[in-house]
């Protein structure tokens, strides 16, 4: 089961374009509207810029640029023609989701409304959305066009102008049903387009959770959290491990002994206890989780770097670089790091999978990045309470977690295999 990298990327791109064409058109309109606003009234424009906005625009730009990048690099680079396996395909998919999150997820991960209708819906279930006439939110004529457009794209976590209903009964009076409760809408309160009342269907692709939130978009945003925590922690661990390893291996002596003791100390008890200890005592947030996972994973890296530095230290090219007056920092990055990049990379990949697993476990225990961000682990944790009624709350985050870990592990294994066969 192999597929060319370029076909896989192309497939994902076309898939996304087809299913999100409406959103992409809105983005395309939003960008000029924003520039127009910036031209007229730069203060208002700047005050409207926030993370969500930049994030959405960025994902739009990326999706537009992907074909150009492929066309430009197709001739020069050979890697696009490489056959990729399942594991690499999953990694590419994860990167797609990680970068293009706002585009892929159709709704806000925290959106919840009309619980009686949307609570614990099974995958592919359909509900009706009644769009109400809303009073004009924005008075200012300058930015009105832009703001209305923005609201279409950046989904809010609450929207009072829509009602979810199981079924509707439009006659003389307009009735809608929410879990067998009949409710009436006053006449002329529904938004009309071309004289027809706007009532649309919404399909919850992977169902909803106990608060009526869309599991699909929570899953997509959860991917971002998992990968972000994984990447950032790996960087923290990389910096600590390489720096300490270099110092210990290069200087030797008493510093080496002390750092070795320090490593032994960190290795002497299960690191999950250290992580939970620090998170529980000092409070948990996204940054503490990243930091703590980073400082609990640098030990194996330290050992690798140290032993390699010790063996490299007396090689001729290091000695000559030193005699030529190369600074220690440059020596590390220019001479030593390129020599050990392969074992270090393999180690980092396995560390990444360990960190993703640890983050999910922490979220499962309720000690993760907090309730602000959806996370696979916390989704499984909340699904556990509804295990008899809603299997989809556990199955989908579980599968994404397993697929991610499997892909990363088998990729790391492949790299290690290549590495060891190079050495022989």
């Amino acid at each position, binding site marked *: 089961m192999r597929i060319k990298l370029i076909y896989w990327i192309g497939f994902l791109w076309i898939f996304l374009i087809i299913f999100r064409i409406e959103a992409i058109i809105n983005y395309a309109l939003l960008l000029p509207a924003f520039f127009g606003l910036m031209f007229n009234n730069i203060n208002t424009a700047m005050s409207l810029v926030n993370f969500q906005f930049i994030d959405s625009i960025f994902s739009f730009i990326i999706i537009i640029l992907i074909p150009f990048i492929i066309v430009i690099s197709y001739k020069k680079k050979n890697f696009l023609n490489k056959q990729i396996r399942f594991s690499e395909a999953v990694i590419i998919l994860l990167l797609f989701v990680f970068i293009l999150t706002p585009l892929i997820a159709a709704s806000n991960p925290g959106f919840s409304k009309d619980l009686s209708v949307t609570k614990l819906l099974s995958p592919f279930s359909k509900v009706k959305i009644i769009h109400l006439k809303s009073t004009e939110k924005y008075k200012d004529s300058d930015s009105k066009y832009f703001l209305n457009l923005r609201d279409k794209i950046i989904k809010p976590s609450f929207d009072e102008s829509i009602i979810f209903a199981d079924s509707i009964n439009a006659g003389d009076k307009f009735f809608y049903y929410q879990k067998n409760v009949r409710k009436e809408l006053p006449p002329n309160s529904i938004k009309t387009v071309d004289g027809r009342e706007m009532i649309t269907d919404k399909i919850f692709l992977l169902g909803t959770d106990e608060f009526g939130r869309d599991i699909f978009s929570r899953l997509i945003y959860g991917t971002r959290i998992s990968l972000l925590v994984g990447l950032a922690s790996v960087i923290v661990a990389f910096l600590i491990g390489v720096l300490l390893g270099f110092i210990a291996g290069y200087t030797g002596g008493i510093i080496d002994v002390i750092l070795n003791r320090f490593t032994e100390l960190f290795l002497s008890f*299960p690191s999950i206890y250290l992580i*939970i*200890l620090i998170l529980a*005592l000092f409070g948990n947030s996204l940054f503490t989780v990243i930091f703590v996972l980073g400082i609990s994973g640098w030990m194996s890296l330290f050992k690798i770097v140290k032993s390699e530095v010790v063996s490299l230290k007396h090689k001729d090219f290091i000695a000559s670089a030193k005699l030529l007056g190369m600074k220690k920092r440059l020596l590390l990055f220019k001479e030593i790091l390129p020599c050990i990049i392969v074992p270090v990379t393999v180690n980092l990949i396995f560390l990444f999978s360990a960190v993703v697993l640890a983050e999910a476990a922490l979220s499962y225990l309720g000690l993760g990045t907090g309730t602000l961000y959806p996370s696979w682990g916390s989704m499984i944790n909340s699904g556990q309470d509804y295990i008899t009624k809603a299997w989809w709350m*556990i199955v989908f985050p579980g599968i994404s977690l397993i697929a991610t870990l499997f892909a990363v*592990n088998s990729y790391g294994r492949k790299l290690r295999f290549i590495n060891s066969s190079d050495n022989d």
Partner: protein
Amino acid sequence: MRKEFGKTFIKRFLSSLLTLYLLVSFLFIIIRLSPGDPTNKYVSSQLSPDLAKKISASFKLNEPVSDQYVAFLVNVIQGDWGTSYNYHQPVLRVVWQYFSFTFVFALLSFIIQLIFSFYLTIFIVNKRNRLLDKIVSDMSLIVYSIPAFVLGVTLIYIFSVNIDLFPISGLRSLDFEGMSFTSKIFDQIHHIILPLITLSAAGIALFYRYLKDNIDVVLNQTYILHLKASGFRNKIIMTKHILPNAVRPLISVAGIELGILLGGALITEVIFGLPGMGRLTIDSILARDYPLVIGCVFTSGAVMIATNFIADLIKIKIDKRLTVELMN
């Protein structure tokens, strides 16, 4: 040789003691550095400041940290780990209650992991079936990638919720006390099967991977080819030459794995509501039960160091050349 072995032994032992001392100090420091007051749980310092101070004094939290540290160390050397705030019992007694369960549980899981992975590997290697080998190889990586909480919850969903074969959680049934001896044992086994599967699955996959990779490496060595050319039977080559060489690197991995298991299988214990070290540690951390936190983490640290130590000794026993190498 014997002298060198003794030297190595003593050196390793002293180094382990030093690590344990550092561990205790590290835990003590990190706990005292943290914000928050354990007395807040029992009495509000705003409502009754005098009482809060009294409780704080009874916990000896009002003394300077250096004095606390020295007193703590002296007590620890005398075998007194303090009294748990929550359980109102000496820490060692609380830890012992929970550790006895973890010990049995971890050892069972460890034995299952070793036996299953060993025979699975032997089976696959003897079959010499490319397709089967590949399937099991991929399966082992998938099983290794399944987080314990996903596996545990899935098992509960299938075996407890849907077909009601095993109990969801706990260690014994409600009417445990009234049972006869045999049904008591049966009841415990009945309760522990799902947790054991959850805990062992990843380990089986891990050991399988290591053993299989090692056997593959050994199979390509020239001395195996020589043995084959000399007309030895496959079975003898397998048992006398391949396995001893392939198992040897596994020992240190097994030591680490056993250490981690004995330190408490946190996730498994949380899912199945088992009274083990993992849950005790987490509960004590979340309740800010400082003496118990130190006791628990120290215990798991000591167990981990001990298992690594034993693994090294076994390795030296098998291969005497390692004495010099492990000394450094």
